[in-house]
């Protein structure tokens, strides 16, 4: 289904993604994918901290009530209980919002889950600017926090297709994972028959020679539009989609930057500590020259507001990615 734009100037509800104007969406891809996996894998269990309906895991709870544990508003305990379940051989998928998982339960993720590589899957909703509820609800630094924890795999999927495939991949992967969630009606950007997500694998979505865009999460959908806009201006832009932030696909990034050293990163997150920092780390470590411009959230607590307003306010749209690329080329 397609979703029309909301009344402008009104604080956005708890949404999922930039669904406005999306040509195609899928309903609750995480919940549906988890049910599919759980049908064949009896070790999968689900947990939430009073956000079942808001993280789409209520579908799993309805289908497998005996394998679902409501933990209540207690995120530290959510992660601890999940770690305990993992240590008895289960594969717990624990859902809450990015902000509550990473800010409130950090020590529990680091020590309870990651130190001993417990097989815990943390599914975190409202990444970046996918809610208009302001500083309390917008997960703007979660990737930076999670990237800094040893043993933890960190994934920011682009769309419904990749999210579904990631659920399947992380269920089969032994070890702790932090997966950013897109909920509700989620855009379908990648063709499910053509795209194949793999943990740790970046995907070159467009070949180009003038500028390289490296993007993650829902920003890849905007980056695809930016590539088309740039092409209209006669600029050849490569696009590398990096949905796994950790382990980072250094090889793919370096191969691209060696060919095209003018790089724009695009992420639904602070421009420090996330994708841009990972790209900078990789290129500096390898001594590969890079000219980098970063599109993302500046280091501030963001305003409340409608999603279109916030995207415009923090310069996170496809036009902003294209403008950064043009600025770099014409400098």
């Amino acid at each position, binding site marked *: 289904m397609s979703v029309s734009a909301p009344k402008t100037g009104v604080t956005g509800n708890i949404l999922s993604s930039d669904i406005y104007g999306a040509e195609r969406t899928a309903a609750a891809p995480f919940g549906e994918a988890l049910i599919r996996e759980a049908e064949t894998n009896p070790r999968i269990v689900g947990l939430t901290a009073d956000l079942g309906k808001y993280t789409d895991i209520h579908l799993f709870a309805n289908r497998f009530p005996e394998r679902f544990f409501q933990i209540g508003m*207690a995120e530290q305990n959510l992660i*601890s209980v999940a770690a*305990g*379940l993992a240590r008895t051989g289960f594969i717990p998928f624990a859902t809450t919002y990015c902000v509550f998982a990473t800010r409130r339960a950090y020590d*529990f993720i680091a020590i309870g889950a990651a*130190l001993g590589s417990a097989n815990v899957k943390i599914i975190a909703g409202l990444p970046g600017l996918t809610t208009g509820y302001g500083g309390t609800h917008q997960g703007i630094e979660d990737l930076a926090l999670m990237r800094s924890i040893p043993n933890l795999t960190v994934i920011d999927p682009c769309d419904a297709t990749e999210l579904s495939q990631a659920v399947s991949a992380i269920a089969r992967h032994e070890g702790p994972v932090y997966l950013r969630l897109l909920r509700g009606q989620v855009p379908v950007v990648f063709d499910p028959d053509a795209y194949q997500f793999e943990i740790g694998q970046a995907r070159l979505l467009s070949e180009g020679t003038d500028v390289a865009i490296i993007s993650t999460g829902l920003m890849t959908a905007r980056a695809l539009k930016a590539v088309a806009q740039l092409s209209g201006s006669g600029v050849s832009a490569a696009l590398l989609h990096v949905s796994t932030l950790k382990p980072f696909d250094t090889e793919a990034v370096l191969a691209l930057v060696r060919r095209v050293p003018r790089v724009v990163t695009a992420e639904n997150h602070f421009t420090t500590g996330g994708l841009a920092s990972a790209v900078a780390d990789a290129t500096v470590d390898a001594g590969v020259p890079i000219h980098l411009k970063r599109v993302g959230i500046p280091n501030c607590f963001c305003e409340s507001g409608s999603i279109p307003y916030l995207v415009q306010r923090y310069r996170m749209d496809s036009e902003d990615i294209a403008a950064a690329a043009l600025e770099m080329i014409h400098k």
Partner: protein
Amino acid sequence: MSGGTDVSTTATSITSLQLHALSLRRHVLRMAERVGQGYVGQGLGIADLLTVLYFREMKYDPHNLAWPDRDRFLLSIGHYSIGLYAALAEAGVITVDELDTYGADQSRLEMAGSEVTPGFEMTGGSLGHGLGQAVGMALGVRLDGRSSRIFNLLSDGELQEGSTWEAAMSAAHYRLDHLFAFIDCNDQQADGPPRQVLTIEPVHSKWEAFGWDTQRINGNDIHAIVNAIDAARKITGKPHAIVLDTLMGKGVRTFEERDKNHFIRVEPDEWRLAREQLEENAQLKTKRTA
């Protein structure tokens, strides 16, 4: 102890348990003397509970630690690991010789224990983690239809961590009557007694209010510990809290009597005295029992 034997049903005399407890205390002194310091007060104070758990109550196989039907012991309080190492050595999970590496570089027996050591089910030490993981394990073994039970050791100071109470609520909510929490009240935390740091009393009624079957006993009385666990086992539909009033340094008079310290530093010449006092105390107890 071998896999499949439910130790809790075999009669083990109190005297035999007291001998194990003495042995645990000897191990604790041996470890602490090697490094000249450590959490010796906690190790001596908790030896009686660990003895009852490892030599009477818990079913486990020291030669197959991954046995899925085992009972699980979770040490929230990582700095008490000196006590658990002693129990694990006494139980044959690790060798007594390995105790000499306590706190040494590259040793598996870290001063704040973690899951790198065999027999450690989780990493404690960052306080407030144990009970939540115990709840997860209790849900897990129940989902698998196993008869395993989960035992978690917390401390009085640890009750100040809010996550403990999140876990306490969930244990009662899920009616985890195969979960046992032991709260060691030795009246000492890093900055002093809890009543000066942050009041935690009334401990008994707090657990009761959170929906737990609760008892409070002398945690250095093996007979009382045995009776409390036996009584708890009969209560269904609720998790069990057993609050233990213990004496830091129990069994070694000079440690029992000195100003209470969270982390005891001992002068080199005091260790011989400590060992002698432990043996004297044990002989007195034996005479009394006889």
